[in-house]
């Protein structure tokens, strides 16, 4: 039985009258890549925000390594070891690539020089060329942004990494590059990951296990093949109900 890293128990999040996440529960096991899929507005990003402390869930709890982390502020949650990337890249436009990653590294290494060494190491790991390190955040391409975001998160030395639509907007060969990096993160760094994704080809190929959300609830769970053939999932995606 693999060790449980993250446990989401009966989480509810409402915005006004709308229930974005509706009694959602799930578990994430050590060193796996969990794909979290679902149609638009299924509540995936809201769930992410509940886990990472951007929102406080209205009901239910989140446990990380058997410790209750419900409602802790984001900067504390990351100290516990949960890092994330963003759906829309949030670059530090006026910082260099190296400095942006150094910011992440400073969480564990208070000394700037050592943190910079660490940042270089991570940048090399995700495969950003040396000559790009001194570029500003406003001067790099989308795939590089994604990789820098990833590097920033990795530099905080997380145990769990939450990736929000990391492949969105990328071209196929860029996705392959990204997928390789993610697999290396799992295999070499032994970091557990949750991947929220729309691009089916990408997430199906990458994930060890998949959870499907629809209208704030979990409607299916299992291996990519199991999920792909689940009638409930097909119905949700084909949209017999209005979205």
């Amino acid at each position, binding site marked *: 039985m693999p060790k449980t890293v993250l446990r989401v128990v009966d989480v509810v999040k409402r915005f006004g009258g709308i229930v974005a996440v509706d009694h959602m529960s799930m578990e994430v096991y050590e060193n796996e890549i969990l794909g979290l899929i679902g149609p638009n507005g299924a509540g995936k990003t809201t769930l992410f925000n509940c886990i*990472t402390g*951007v929102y406080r869930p209205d009901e239910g709890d989140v446990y990380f390594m058997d410790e209750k982390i419900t409602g802790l*502020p*984001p*900067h504390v949650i*990351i*100290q516990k070891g949960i*890092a*994330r990337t*963003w759906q829309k890249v*949030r*670059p*530090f*436009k*006026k*910082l260099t690539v190296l*400095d*942006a990653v*150094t*910011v*992440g590294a*400073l*969480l564990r290494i*208070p*000394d*700037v*020089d050592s*943190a910079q060494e660490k940042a270089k190491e991570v940048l090399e790991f995700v495969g950003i060329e040396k000559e790009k390190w001194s570029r500003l*955040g406003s001067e790099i391409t989308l795939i590089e942004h994604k990789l820098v975001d990833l590097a*920033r*998160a990795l530099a*905080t030395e997380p145990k769990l990494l939450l990736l929000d639509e990391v492949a969105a907007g990328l071209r196929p060969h860029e996705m392959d590059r990204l997928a390789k990096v993610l697999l290396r993160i799992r295999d070499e760094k032994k970091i557990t990951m949750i991947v929220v994704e729309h691009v089916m080809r990408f997430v199906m190929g990458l994930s060890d296990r998949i959870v499907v959300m629809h209208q704030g609830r979990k409607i299916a769970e299992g291996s990519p093949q199991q999920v792909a053939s689940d009638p409930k999932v097909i119905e949700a995606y084909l949209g017999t109900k209005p979205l």
Partner: protein
Amino acid sequence: MAKPNKILGIPRRNFYGIIVFALILSTVPALLRFNTYYVYLATDIILIASLVAAWNIIGGYAGQLDLAASAYMALGAVVTGNLLAFYGLTPWLGIPIGVLIALGVAVAVGYPTFRFGIKEVWYALLTAALVVILSRIYWLIYGSTETYLPTYEWSWFYLRFNRYEPFYYMLVVMLAIVLWINYRIRHSKLGYYLNAIREDELAAEALGIDVRRYKLYALMIYATLASIIGGIYVCITGVVGYRNFDPWLGITTAVMGIVGGLGSVEGAVMSGMILRTLEDYLRGTIGSQYPGSHLLVYGIILIVVGVLKPEGLASLIEYVKKRIPWLKS
């Protein structure tokens, strides 16, 4: 702590930069042949430059548009001034007391403000309102009376002189210290964190940065520096009153910082010096014929910089730096 390539925690290049800059500034009074007026003008310019450089910590690094520079400066000034005038307390003690009070106000205002996530335009307006509030509170306590500091021909104890050179050199040292603190912050965890907060608060928080705490640090450092400058300022002018809380000065400080280019302390110092000099020059030339025309020019500069060159003077400095190889590290 000091690494081989660092002196006092800042890169060698910056350290020698400050020393050379201070040395050049030290020769200025002699170049002006100790003409009282020019030395006073130079003192005033250095004072504003120090204030703008101090503002750079909250405005440039942390990205908070603080318009209350004059509030903290005035707190330092009125505390130091009143203690000297009424109790004969030396500014050497008065300034630290002023700093403590300014720090108290900074924390009392900054803690809830950052706690409740007030930023951008609301932060700017809040700080502008702070200056008015403090001014009215002072007025309710002391009324409209003005206090004049006792005059001494040459007293280091009371920090009152009949010349401006001592103030000039004090402020040069102050400017060097403010510059050093700026560089020190830039090359420390605090600086990296503040820059990240300025760029994207949410992303910064997701990287483990306690945004409120670091903003408060920046505010505290800035309030401390501004109140020290205020303490020196009051010894120069010798007048204390509720008008020390000048909302306009708070705005001009921020304006100079923005024109300088956010986050670039060199730009901030340069813009403080240039704009202050320009203001005085314009006041003397066209200002007396057409009242307000010097500030009009100022306004136009601001619009032009904002519309065409939002990076401010800093981009100019960068440009020069790229052309001069030995300035690169």
